[in-house]
């Protein structure tokens, strides 16, 4: 292909596909054909650009223009004004919700300004379904460098020196892990990529596989060379059809090019990868349960030690690395350990990808240097709390993590600091809560998830989480008892102490941390039978203040169950006072924002 003057990049991640990027692609093809620009402009779909909130995103290179929320009907204008005449279509640029300012270049946007993309670097640059793009940006050079210039031990030492730690949650040194497997003598070893991303709301692994699958394949081959393995498995959930498909295409292309298979680069190193599709059980993200699942057994954890690096898949030494961890490896080899150490915080080198969600303006995928503060992530990148509400807490680590309250918003995000604050890094979900979120209810939500996902092997986890859920359920329904908190704490500690795997060891975290930081909310539910945030439906009632009601009938008209009636009392200009029938009210809240005089209140 001859280089074209312009390239139009359409975000083709799952998020943008669901907001309609495929229509945008078709519209571009039609419009370019119409204007005779097909030789001048190249259109391609790339991996996730991160700013899912504003999708579908269209980038124009080399201008570096960043268009947001592009629909099929906008395309003609982009083609005629921008591609033909060089005039930016300003109405499609990102507009800051706070300041109203529009941004021409993505680099100036606050959402991208504080980010540092390493693992996600090529997401949005390469076409994930073309190995040629990856090779063109020095893809597979790191593998060549390992095979020709380095001994396996030197590769391991380099990864150790870089300080890279597992991005799946526990934060164990990747180089040390590789060294364990390297030191075990054996005829057969395995490299497993853990792509069983299970935390609700986390989607960094999916995005990497959708946007840049070759970096993961290359990293697995490097690991295989380092530890002496010849077979790799990617364990990925079948719930990720696009990632599965792109990875399948990538593996096939790598084989065609001879980058997987026998005698890679004409050396005596051979390595191949196959995929294993998981059924989406949360516990199978735990490495030993994952191994069981690959072997066709029930997804239940094994007793450690022996660790998988010594006795793993089919009883052979096995390295299991998370997708994001692997995506860092090729760049560490090419740029060196010192470069990686120069990013992030001491003992926490490099970056971490977070899936930013919840009550925040800029929802999306962000990659930041380790050691950044929560404040910077939430306010600088995330654009603050939606609707100008008050920040209450941020939940990290998904159902295994805990809440970081306001008082800790300035701590630096590192593996250790999060543990100290009663949470954990986890795979990088970050859900922001505002004043309308009830902490007891949120804790119940996460526990509901772990009750469902507990594999049942350990009694404390299987029965204990169910008992905890029942207690929380009672509390949110106004039937809490005096010693419930004591009971929750004791159950939580016991489950943590006596469960085999990470699921049980961390399942009580959301409850324990909310009890620690938001005890007053628990007490309000138990003692006063009140939900301060107004989120627990059984504990609130919607009431019309007679002094404020003007009898306009708006509330009665929006009520879906027709439970707002008039009574014989004159208000306003000869109108009737309205009253909510508490027996019929379903507490949907539809009337609340509609009342022109704010006469409806929560009690």
């Amino acid at each position, binding site marked *: *292909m001859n*280089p074209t*003057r312009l*390239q139009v990049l359409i975000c083709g991640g799952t998020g943008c596909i669901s907001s309609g990027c495929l229509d945008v692609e078709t519209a571009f093809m039609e419009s370019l054909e119409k204007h005779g620009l097909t030789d001048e402009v190249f259109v391609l779909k790339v991996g996730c650009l991160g700013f899912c909130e504003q999708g579908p995103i269209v980038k124009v290179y*080399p201008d570096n223009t960043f268009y947001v929320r592009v629909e099929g009907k906008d395309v003609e204008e982009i083609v005629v004004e921008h591609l033909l*005449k*060089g005039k930016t279509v300003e109405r499609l640029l990102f507009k800051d919700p706070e300041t109203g300012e529009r941004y021409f270049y993505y680099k100036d946007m606050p959402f991208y300004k504080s980010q540092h993309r390493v693992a996600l670097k090529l997401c949005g640059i390469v076409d994930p379904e073309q190995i040629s793009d990856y090779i063109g940006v020095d893809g597979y050079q790191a593998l060549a460098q390992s095979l020709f210039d380095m001994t396996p031990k030197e590769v391991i030492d380099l990864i150790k020196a870089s300080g890279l730690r597992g991005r799946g949650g526990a934060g164990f040194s990747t180089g040390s892990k590789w060294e364990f497997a390297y030191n075990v003598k054996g005829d057969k070893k395995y490299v497993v990529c853990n792509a069983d991303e299970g935390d609700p709301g986390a989607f960094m692994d999916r995005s990497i596989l959708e946007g840049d699958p070759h970096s993961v394949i290359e990293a697995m081959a490097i690991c295989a060379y380092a530890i002496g393995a010849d077979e790799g498995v990617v364990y990925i959930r079948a719930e990720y059809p696009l990632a599965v498909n792109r990875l399948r295409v990538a593996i096939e292309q790598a084989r065609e090019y*001879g980058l997987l298979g026998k005698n890679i680069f004409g050396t005596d190193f051979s390595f191949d990868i196959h995929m294993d599709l998981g059924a989406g059980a949360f516990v199978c993200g735990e490495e030993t349960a994952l191994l069981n699942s690959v072997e066709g057994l029930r997804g239940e954890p094994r007793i450690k030690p022996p660790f998988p690096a010594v006795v793993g898949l089919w009883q052979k030494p096995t390295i299991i690395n998370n997708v994001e961890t692997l995506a860092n490896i090729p760049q560490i080899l090419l740029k060196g350990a010192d470069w990686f150490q120069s990013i992030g915080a001491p003992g926490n080198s490099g970056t971490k990808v977070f899936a930013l969600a919840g009550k925040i303006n800029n929802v999306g995928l962000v990659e930041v240097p380790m050691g950044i503060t929560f404040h910077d992530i939430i306010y600088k990148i995330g654009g603050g709390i939606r609707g100008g509400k008050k920040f209450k807490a941020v939940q990290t680590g998904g159902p295994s993590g805990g809440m970081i309250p306001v008082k800790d918003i300035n701590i630096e995000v590192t593996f250790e600091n999060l543990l100290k604050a009663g949470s954990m890094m986890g795979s990088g979900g970050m859900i922001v809560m505002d004043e309308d979120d009830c902490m007891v209810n949120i804790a119940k939500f996460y526990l509901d998830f772990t009750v469902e996902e507990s594999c049942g092997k350990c009694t404390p986890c299987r029965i204990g989480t169910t008992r905890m859920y029942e207690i929380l359920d009672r509390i949110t329904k106004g039937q809490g008892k005096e010693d419930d908190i004591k009971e929750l704490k004791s159950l939580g500690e016991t489950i943590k102490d006596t469960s085999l795997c990470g699921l049980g060891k961390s399942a009580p975290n959301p409850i324990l941390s909310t009890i620690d930081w938001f005890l007053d909310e628990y007490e309000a539910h138990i003692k006063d039978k009140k939900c301060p945030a107004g989120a627990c439906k059984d504990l609130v009632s919607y009431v019309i203040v007679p002094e404020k009601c003007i009898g306009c009938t708006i509330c009665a008209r929006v009520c879906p169950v027709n439970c707002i009636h008039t009574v014989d009392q004159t208000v306003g200009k000869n109108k009737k006072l309205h009253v909510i029938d508490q027996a019929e009210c379903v507490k949907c809240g539809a009337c609340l924002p509609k009342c022109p005089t704010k006469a409806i209140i929560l009690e």
Partner: protein
Amino acid sequence: MIKSREDLMNLRNKYRDDVIMRLISYDSSNRTEVMVGMADCGIAAGARDTLKVLFDEVNNARLEDVSVIAVDCMGNCDNEPIVQISTPGKPVIRYKKVDTALAKEIVAKHLVGGSILDHARMEV
């Protein structure tokens, strides 16, 4: 089929053209930007040909860190086609009435050779 390290290097060089623009644009802090005024006034004066020549010549010279970008009116319609060259750390240079011959000269002397063409320069 890649059989050696050289094979990979050859493929890298072959495929690089397709993707280099994206890589350079993504981290645009170090690139030289060659901007061509492509409003109606520029197009009427022949900016489309100028742009094409600039683009082809930059590619032929394999100037990886140079991007040729079409922009809106630069506000001096008499002198179109206008070409502006912004190199990080250097003053911005503008050339006036850039026809295809001058465009070739700009690439050869300014972008490759590093010397400013005083005869075609205009004030910024």
